[in-house]
């Protein structure tokens, strides 16, 4: 599966490249990039841990999952419903983090990018 030769890269407009480089060089951009990744990766890690942890418990700790909390409700059933409810909760947290902290920063940078691009 060898790829022959150098890829024919599309011609880049100098103004475009300049604008992107300028934006990338700002501290705000680096901050946006770092925090955005940390929010996305944290949220993913938490939700995957909760989910696969639940599967693992259902496999490995059947006695624990079979014990009852109240009435006939077992620990397994309660945890399963908790996983289900974790989804809207995580989605709400994610949206709130982005809307309060990061979206305004992104808007600011988008405006700067537009200005730089138009500034031929």
């Amino acid at each position, binding site marked *: 599966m060898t790829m022959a030769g150098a890829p024919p890269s599309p011609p880049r407009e100098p103004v475009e490249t300049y604008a992107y480089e300028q934006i990338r060089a700002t501290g705000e951009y680096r901050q946006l990039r770092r925090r955005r990744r940390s929010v996305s990766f944290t949220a993913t890690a938490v939700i995957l841990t909760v989910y696969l942890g639940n599967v693992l418990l259902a496999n490995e700790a059947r006695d624990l999952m079979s014990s009852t909390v109240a009435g006939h409700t077992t620990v397994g059933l309660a945890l*399963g419903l908790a996983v289900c409810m974790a989804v*809207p909760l995580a989605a709400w947290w994610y949206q709130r983090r982005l809307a309060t902290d990061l979206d305004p920063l992104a808007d600011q940078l988008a405006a700067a990018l537009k200005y730089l691009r138009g500034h031929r």
Partner: protein
Amino acid sequence: MNSTHALTSSEQPYPAFAIFVVCVVCALLLSVWFSPHRDTTEDFFINNRRLTAAQSGLAMFGEYISAAALLGVPGLIALSGYDGLLYLLGPIIALTIILFLIAEPFHTSGRFTIADAVARRLRPRPVHTALGISTLAASMLYLIAQLVGAGALAAPILGLAGPAAQRALVASLGILMILYVVIGGMKAATVMQCIKAVVLLAGSGLLAILVLAEFGWNPGALLTAATRMSSAGDALLRPGLLFNDDLTGQLDVFSLQLAFVLGAASLPHLLTRLCAVPTARTARSSVRGAAVLTSVFGLIVVVLGFGATAILGSDAIPHPGNTATLLLAEALGGPLLLAMLAFVVFATILAVVSGVMLAAATSLAHDIYRSTIKAGRTSDKRELFVARSAVVLIGGTAITMSMYVQNINASLLIGLSFAVAASANLPTLLFTFYWKGFTATGAAWSVYGGLISSLGLAVFSPAVSGNPRALLPTANFAYFPLQNPGLVSIPLSFLLGWLGSTLGRERADEISYAEWEVRTLTDTKATRPGH
């Protein structure tokens, strides 16, 4: 899922056929009414990016919930209790993966297909070829599974019995959907998804409310009644009714769950929807809406499942439980409610099949025909013609193939299609969005490696040969012990993507990545045309 039990009272006391015909006529009228005004690819494939977040979120939820989820999962919960619940959680979690990692970058870089999103950054032609093939493979398996499931699920409602009647039903449903998609494109498909989503939530929600009312609005009383009426007794709420406790059984569960959560996050027909809205933030909101709706629907399904056991008793629900929801509706609301639920089921089948067909045809026309065969040199009009022909070709092939695998368990096929999507598509998507060192060589290794390993391992799995319930019960070449290949093929595909990028001679185009990243983070469109 190949049961042909007719419903208890289906000696035509309720007008199932009439409802079916009404569904069909409404669907065709809708497709003509909402057919694209202008004949462009943007209109046909993604409705010109003009959907709102609410429409798109609702449509995505509709696209996501298949008839198997509406009928199969409550049945599993009714009969297997806690273990059935595990089938529910993966798909719900998958939407949050799309929300956190995929939605916004996909929207910024995508145009119509998964390959478009990747080709923005990497060399377009090999990427289009590889992802076009993997998209077709995953969609085809999913489509066949839906058609097989549709036959098994809809036949008892119509009072049809026997494989011949089931085949005729599948063929007519499939042909109808081909017509629908060819005429209406994405806009008609979206309208169908939205109507289906509303009908689905209203119908199943009403049924769940009736169940809860029956037990004095007390979920505890519902569970107590369920354990009393189940032949499994208290074991209904404990692990172990469905999955074996040995090592292979446990690995199989884990493999299936991994494939569910990562595969559902990379299903082509779902991701295409991300491109039908105007901005990355609208894409984010629509996935968030779909995730919330799906978890609400999950709770409804749990109530329906345990409600079916509590009210009917597990002995009255024929194995594998596909009719549990319908029997419950009949017990609580008589023929009227049963007829309503039948309408919901038909709308669900028609909507999901049309969505998957559209995604597969889009990929065939856009990735394979335009970008691979014609290397981008073709007109939109021509591409559109190929897309419409592709719907007929793909639909026809899927219908024909579903006839041959009618006796295979549809949920097994769905698990396999999720494993293929997770192995072939997801690693490439994540590397493209989050690793600047990724190259087209890495993408090709990952996609082909994931595709071949997942399909190959499936062929040598106990699902295909070696036991009486397999596709080929008389042959025995089941060298791979797990039913689902995901546990091996997904990590392998990630590894191959990394190896191909670091070992291949190709240098990563870091400037492209940097510019793309700026556009994604600031939600800005490219000014120069993409590929």
